[in-house]
């Protein structure tokens, strides 16, 4: 009954989306008064999909095995929280989550948007409904999450231990909120291209949506990186895996879009760039979902490989992105740009920022799909991985980080003061950092060395917008910018430290052996068999000492039977200046055990930096929404006075 309710709600929502599409055409062509109807229907559509999604969660929570999806992906022995998370830990459920977010975003757009012109808003709501329609069709005709099976089996198959992890349970929803949040920017861009109302009003309407989606994407990627770091057992945090790239590309586009929106909002310029970026950002989300589900690229993240699903998604991608690009080509001629920007101005800085971000995005895109192109053309199989991406994206990112220190200091329109005079202290810090690395660690590789220099410089430079004014009177939006840029410096510092100072120790040890890794002496005390709810394991007890500190760590290797897999449960201990990362492996012929130990100085700064970047975004979101600063509340917005915002 519950499943059928969910299915019915989904059908109704699809029907409403179709109606919204018709209303949009009516509004645009005949100037019919549809505003109230459109908004209400958008809200209703959101409510219905929420009901459908809730129904799915309920059948999973109750372990209703008569629903095929529950049978395939769940088991009554699962802890409750993973039963619920199991609802979206599969293809159909996550597609339902995707479409729910799409519809709910549309609902909020209908409820809240007041800053755009009414026609543009209606067009955007229609576009959002069209996006949803394709996915409704996909769900209802090719991936029904509510399909039943008779007779209902006694229990389910899905007890994959790898999916029973808190990080893994919440990583998809965070990312999806980000991916699909970008759909609103897409729809607003499409709507504005249809009505021709591409202006600063549109930018201010888009901004909170892009900010919110971008914050979630930042968090999702950061969390995913940390999960891979502690779960895969080799200390790596980014692998340039195609699916990782699929999450990075929308983020890069969204970052560029965010900054481009600021120019459109402040100066009414960069119309074409902003519209194109808004379209590309969600297109990248769609490309990402296609890559993950079609199985055309080899990846450790292989989700549910099914070329048929891939075909459907590719068709949706072609239709949606193709239509948006056609719209851009057709209507692009009306996007008139104004006078050029002064060379030394905030606008120019942001244009260059956009350029570099777009180049990085392009490079990641090319690198990810290149092996496919080469194989299609010549049949040759070549591999593109970390060596390529690090070599190309690394320097570009460092260049961008260097420019990030300068951009926020520039005034809008024209920077007349010699801003470079503000930079001696950051520059000095950077030079000092460089000198220290050269003196103390002459063998360090180039990239981490430059990373240290730029991190030191940027950490100081990012704070400059708050200097020379009362920081407590600065708008939240300025604080947001400062915190986010500072976060970049922090993350960069962590990456440089990880690359330059990680000490690795791989050895085979008998109980009693002592291994040294960095400042630590690690002794293997014992290896004992142990067991958990659905696994058997071997657990090593390690005693690590550093000066006066003594700690114990217990890494495990777990063996599961259903499906038969083994996982490394690394034991990690975090200190103010780094992490001690330990893994126990297989037993040698002599009875000794394989141990993998790392001392990673300041590695946690990588994810702390990511969190800071997201925090900066949150401050900006709150600040712009409510015009807060610490003391002045609800300050009237006058961007001309906001020199640094």
């Amino acid at each position, binding site marked *: 009954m519950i499943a059928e309710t969910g299915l019915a709600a989904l059908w109704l929502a699809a029907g409403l989306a179709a109606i919204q599409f018709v209303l949009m055409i009516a509004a645009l062509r005949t100037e019919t008064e549809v505003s109230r109807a459109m908004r209400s229907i958008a809200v209703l559509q959101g409510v219905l999909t929420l009901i459908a999604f809730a129904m799915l969660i309920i059948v999973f929570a109750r372990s209703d095995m008569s629903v095929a999806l529950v049978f395939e992906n769940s088991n009554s022995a699962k802890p409750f929280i993973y039963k619920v998370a199991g609802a979206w830990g599969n293809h159909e459920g996550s597609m339902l989550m995707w479409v729910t977010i799409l519809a709910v975003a549309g609902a909020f757009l209908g409820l809240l948007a007041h800053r755009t012109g009414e026609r543009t808003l209606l067009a955007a709501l229609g576009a959002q409904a069209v996006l949803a329609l394709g996915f409704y069709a996909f769900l209802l005709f090719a991936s029904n999450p509510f399909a039943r099976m008779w007779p209902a089996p006694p229990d389910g198959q899905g007890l994959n231990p790898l999916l029973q992890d808190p990080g893994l349970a919440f990583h998809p929803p965070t990312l999806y909120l980000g991916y699909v949040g970008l759909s609103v920017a897409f729809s607003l861009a499409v709507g504005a291209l249809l009505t021709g109302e591409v202006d600063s009003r549109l930018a201010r309407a888009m901004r909170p949506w892009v900010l919110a989606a971008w914050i979630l994407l930042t968090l999702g990627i950061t969390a995913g990186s940390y999960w891979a770091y502690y779960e895969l057992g080799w200390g790596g945090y980014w692998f340039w895996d195609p699916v990782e790239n699929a999450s990075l590309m929308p983020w890069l586009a969204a970052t560029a879009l965010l900054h481009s929106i600021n120019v459109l909002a402040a100066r009414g310029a960069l119309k074409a760039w902003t519209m194109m970026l808004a379209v590309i950002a969600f297109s990248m989300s769609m490309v990402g979902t296609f890559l993950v589900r079609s199985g*055309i690229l080899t990846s450790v993240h292989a989700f549910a490989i099914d070329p048929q699903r891939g*075909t459907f998604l590719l068709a949706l991608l072609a239709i949606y992105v193709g239509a948006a690009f056609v719209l851009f080509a057709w209507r*692009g001629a009306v996007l008139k740009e104004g006078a050029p920007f002064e060379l030394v101005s905030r606008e120019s800085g942001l244009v260059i920022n956009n350029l570099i971000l777009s180049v990085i995005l392009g490079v990641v895109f090319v690198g990810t*799909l290149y092996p*496919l192109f080469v194989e299609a053309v010549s049949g040759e199989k070549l591999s593109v991985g970390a060596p390529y991406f690090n070599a190309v994206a690394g320097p570009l990112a460092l260049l961008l980080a260097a420019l990030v220190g300068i951009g926020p200091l520039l005034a809008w329109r024209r920077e007349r003061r010699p801003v470079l005079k503000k930079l001696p202290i950051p520059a000095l810090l950077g030079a000092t950092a460089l000198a220290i690395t050269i003196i103390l660690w002459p063998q360090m590789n180039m990239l981490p060395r430059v990373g240290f220099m730029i991190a030191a410089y940027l950490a100081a430079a990012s704070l400059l917008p708050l200097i020379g004014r009362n920081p407590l009177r600065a708008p939240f939006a300025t604080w947001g910018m400062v915190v986010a840029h500072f976060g970049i410096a922090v993350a960069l510092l962590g990456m440089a430290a990880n690359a330059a100072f990680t000490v690795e120790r791989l050895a085979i040890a008998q109980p009693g052996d002592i291994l040294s890794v960095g400042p630590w002496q690690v002794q293997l005390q014992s290896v004992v068999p142990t067991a958990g709810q659905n696994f058997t394991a071997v657990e090593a007890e390690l005693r690590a000492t550093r000066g006066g500190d003594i700690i114990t760590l217990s890494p495990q290797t777990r063996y599961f039977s259903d499906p038969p897999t083994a996982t490394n449960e690394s034991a990690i201990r975090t200190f103010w200046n780094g992490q001690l990362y330990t893994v126990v492996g297989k037993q040698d012929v002599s009875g000794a055990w394989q141990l993998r130990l790392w001392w990673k100085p300041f590695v946690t700064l990588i994810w702390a930096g990511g969190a800071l970047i997201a925090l900066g975004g949150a401050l900006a979101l709150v600040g712009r929404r409510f015009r807060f600063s610490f003391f002045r509340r609800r300050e009237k917005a006058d961007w001309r006075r906001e020199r640094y915002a």
Partner: protein
Amino acid sequence: MSRAVRFAPLALLLLVIVALVWRLATPADTDVHSTLEGKRVPAFALAAGLPSKPAFSSGDLATGRPHLVNVFASWCVPCVTEVKVLQTLKDSGVAVDGIAIRDSAPELADFLLRNGDPYERIGSDPRSQVQIALGSSGVPESFVVDGKGVIRYQHIGPIEQGDVPMILSKLEKAR
């Protein structure tokens, strides 16, 4: 904005879609093939996998007779059924030699006892060295080697009953 600039994204999209359609239509072959087809077998000398069998070295492959070199292991699940097919080939007069990957004598003996023994020689490759030298990426795989020691064909995966005529014809061509 010039027309070229406005239509460029569409053109690029088309290119990408075409590539993706091609990939969906012709699924990727995830097997990594050895590049040594047509080249001489690299020199190797493996100790005997079992005391009851002769050792296996590359010299044994250049005696004028084509050989079927089977890369296998006692712990390899599909090898169990493949051995019966190899027996059929042996009965048709094919010289079958084995390279046992990461294996031990007692487990090999047990495997052959339970499933049959079509091998003339079995070489022991405990660190996959010869497997890597041959460009093989897993078990089971088989190589058709001609009388001069040149690799003529690599078969990835177990040889199934339906593959027998094809293997026989490859061996014929390798004479």
